[in-house]
């Protein structure tokens, strides 16, 4: 509980910043609706923060799916076969042109009608985010794989590796290290875009903020908290990706068994 309350204090300190920006003397601001120092404020904050799980798990699942799909789409993009490359281009062009919000609405309201599949809020959000992101992941993977010198694949084939083994053990481990920053960007982007899933009713961070505003009528204060929530999540993701990069980077030149 102590850890929790220090976290709240930290959040409260974050709030000081917009407070200063918007003018300290502004008596219109009613920070108490989200103040950790009052009973009601604590309840409201808890309500807002409880959306974190949905936001994070939805973004993370969507990221995993879009990475797998993106990789599968990237492979024909680097094939010798022109038809395969065309198919890759077709997928990428189509799916990166569809705006996310209509896609979310389409998956949630459209799929039941044409395919008889009614996904719940959460999985509709995951699917729409994943599809939309997979086109970008495919481009990231294609660029990453193409950045690995051809000599690597040639050496792999001269020691008997087949296409799959070459990808699995030689090309992808090197490519992934190079595209890690881009993958991190996509994750951060995904977390931000997941806010749009609030429109179909999933109780993630943004939806909860909207719902609270309906009862508290304090848009500025509550949206400020909302922004701070996203800020903190994305800062943490950024640090995590940096850490991973450092870890994999030292792998390259350091001793193998370290």
């Amino acid at each position, binding site marked *: 509980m102590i850890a929790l309350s220090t976290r709240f204090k930290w959040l409260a300190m974050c709030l000081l910043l917009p407070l200063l920006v918007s003018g300290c003397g502004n008596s219109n601001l009613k920070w108490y609706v989200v103040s950790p120092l009052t009973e009601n404020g604590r309840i409201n904050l808890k309500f807002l923060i409880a959306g974190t799980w949905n936001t994070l798990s939805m973004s993370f699942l969507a990221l995993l799916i879009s990475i797998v799909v993106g990789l599968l789409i990237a492979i024909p993009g680097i094939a010798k076969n022109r038809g395969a490359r065309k198919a890759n281009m077709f997928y990428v062009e189509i799916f990166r042109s569809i705006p996310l919000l209509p896609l979310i609405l389409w998956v949630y309201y459209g799929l039941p009608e044409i395919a008889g599949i009614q996904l719940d809020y959460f999985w509709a959000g995951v699917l729409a985010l994943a599809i939309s992101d997979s086109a970008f992941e495919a481009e990231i993977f294609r660029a990453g794989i193409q950045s690995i010198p051809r000599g*690597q694949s040639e*050496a792999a084939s001269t020691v*008997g590796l*087949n296409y799959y083994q070459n990808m699995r053990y030689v090309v992808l481990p090197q490519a992934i290290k190079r595209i890690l920053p881009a993958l991190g960007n996509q994750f951060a982007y995904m977390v931000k875009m997941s806010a749009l899933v609030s429109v179909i009713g999933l109780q993630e961070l943004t939806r909860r903020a909207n719902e609270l505003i309906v009862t508290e009528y304090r848009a500025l204060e509550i949206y400020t908290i909302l922004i701070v929530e996203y800020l903190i999540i994305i800062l943490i993701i950024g640090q995590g990706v940096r850490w991973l990069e450092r870890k994999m980077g030292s*792998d390259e030149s350091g001793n193998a068994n370290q």
Partner: protein
Amino acid sequence: MTATTPVIEMSDVNKWFGDFHVLKDISLSVSTGERIVICGPSGSGKSTVVRCINGLEHHQQGKIVVDGTELTNKRQSLAKIRAEVGMVFQQFNLFPHLSVLQNLTLGPIKSRGLSKADAEARAMEYLERVHIPEQADKRPGQLSGGQQQRVAIARSLCMEPKIMLFDEPTSALDPEMIAEVLEVMLELADEGMTMIVVTHEMGFARKAADLMVFMDEGRIVETGKPDVFFDAPKTERCTQFLEQILHH
């Protein structure tokens, strides 16, 4: 040992890169245990010949038979031939994300189905052969160029090939490191390995080659035993070329 069965047989091989006729009527026969050195000016097609032999490039006309298997675009023939042919590249092409030991064991484990322990034992054996067993746990990036190229040679040997191809193995090396790589190659030659070596290291060629091959503009212009080849080249082009590289 004077075996005479040709282990590589190229007959009238032609190859084009688009419109560019890069190999013209290449015929070459290599017996088991024979060492062939290919030289010639830049762009003459030396690398392409070597890369055709293990199927890294496809020829459009003619026939290449390696150890009794004809090289076609079919996957099985490629896999079969690659299993017999090792290749060492100018740029080493070691796997930078793996340790030296892992570089050596990857092929034997994944494509030969060796156990990790067997593959590592074999890898250490070949690292001894190229005189750098103490580097086993390092990454390629931590080694000197000469050491990296010796690791690359050991990596090929770990597949226990019948034939070794070398494409300018010392061209990317500082002068003081060339000797250590050539020494390893001479030892390999002494052990009776069948070798095709593209190089301009004429000292090595004199010592190791059974046959010299001179290429120019996609053709084999001249072949000969090293002593004859160096001391009395038959063609004008070859004479000029040898003068250039011996007096640069």
